[in-house]
């Protein structure tokens, strides 16, 4: 698992600050919402109130930057059970999911 090189990091940050994307079609958004609730929910709870993973409610995420959160999804958190999702999700898709979390998600 190579870490991104610095110029890539810059690139990633640039992508991450782009607001909610237009490129994700409705079907993909449905898939991502489903993934968020059902699969992220396996560790973080269907109501995002936490489990083996921490709570991901808007209150719990308050004060954390969007870039940091997207980076956590993409690269995981070494030493914890949070895996890197980059093999399955693009930056854009992770960003879309983070935006949903920041608004509050219900099953």
């Amino acid at each position, binding site marked *: *698992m190579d870490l991104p090189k610095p110029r890539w990091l810059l690139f990633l940050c640039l992508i991450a600050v782009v607001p909610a994307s237009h490129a994700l079609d409705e079907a993909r958004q449905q898939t991502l919402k489903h993934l968020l609730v*059902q*699969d992220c929910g396996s*560790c973080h*709870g269907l109501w995002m109130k936490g*489990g*083996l993973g921490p709570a991901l409610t808007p209150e719990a995420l308050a004060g954390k930057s969007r870039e940091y959160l997207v980076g956590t999804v993409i690269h995981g958190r070494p030493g914890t059970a949070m895996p890197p*999702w980059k093999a399955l999700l693009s930056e854009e898709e992770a960003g879309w999911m983070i935006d949903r979390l920041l608004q509050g998600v219900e099953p």
Partner: protein
Amino acid sequence: MKALISLALASVLLSGCALQSGPVERPLRATGDLGLVIERATGSVQIVEHSNNSSLARIEGLGDLSHATAVFSRDQRYAYVFGRDGGLTQIDMLQDRIVNRVIQGGNSIGGAISQDGRLIAVGNYEPGGVRVFDAQTLDMLADIPATPMPDGSRNARVVGVEDAPGQQFLFSLFDTGEIWQADFSQPTAPQLTRFENIGRQPYDALLTPDGRYYIAGLFGEDGLAKLDLWNPQQGVTRVLDGYGRGQEALPVYKMPHLEGWAQAGQLMFLPAIGQHRVLVMNAENWEQQAAIKVAGQPVFVMARPDARQVWVNFAFPDNQLIQVIDTQSLQVIKTIEPGPGVLHMEFTPRGEQVWLSVRDRNELQVWDTETLELVKTLPAQTPSGIFFSSRAHRIGL
């Protein structure tokens, strides 16, 4: 004609009665073929039966069932459901109703029922520890806080709560790498034994069917931590050092479960973590004998009760598949595709059929384990765990 009309009227009245809440009058029935299905997103459960493969009732109001499990009273009448939100719910499977329900913690992972059926132990993430309840009243009898974290912010989270002979509960602490043994022979004065430094991040545990070995899987390093309950003074020993994520530390999209793990003769079948493999360990020398390549990251590796077959389901993105392993040849003999989100499976007590929960298709599927063909489907709302009452009489389930 008149007779027909009154018959129709009677059936309307009858079905009207059946819709009313509260205890339901039913013909006499026993409970050995009953089961409980968790409907995770709606906080409901279904009561099912596997003699004719049908659903008998739905019970709502069980809270957050994101990660829910159930155990059964020894008379197989009551189910105890452990919910993610700390809810402990006692269900009467003959009267289709909630008998008792307490919110005993803030965030729970599962639990166990004692050897004598009188105690229910619940493992909690928040507050980290184990709480033990009277199975009849759900009154709390003991509160066992887990080890505090070094920064004092909270206690370690508890995983792998199992019952063991001698009125014992065994459990592991994810954050601090411990196994605790709680002897409840004197329910008001439990004896605790702590085993420290058992390895990093135990994530789940199993008990061998004879109740002798408690084995915790490690997430934070390779290997399993084994405690011989016949010789606890020997302490926890490490086995299967090749077990785990290996050098590459592959991403793990879903924690494997060790419950329902499989043993056939001297061979034990375990999910590898992160790898697309089922590991085969020889229980005579506790060494790896083989590794079977499978279609994805295994989650549940469960033996048919006669242990001739092992059925495996997988983490996202391969969770639409099931693979069946022949335990004699150690080969995958069939790959089936029940549909997206196969979360759990449960064999009938003698194993001629297996029920699968197919979450994203909102359905339960019953498969014949000899022909490996689909027998029946039943509707269910985002089903996850399936638990048959035959678990009541098995150690460590």
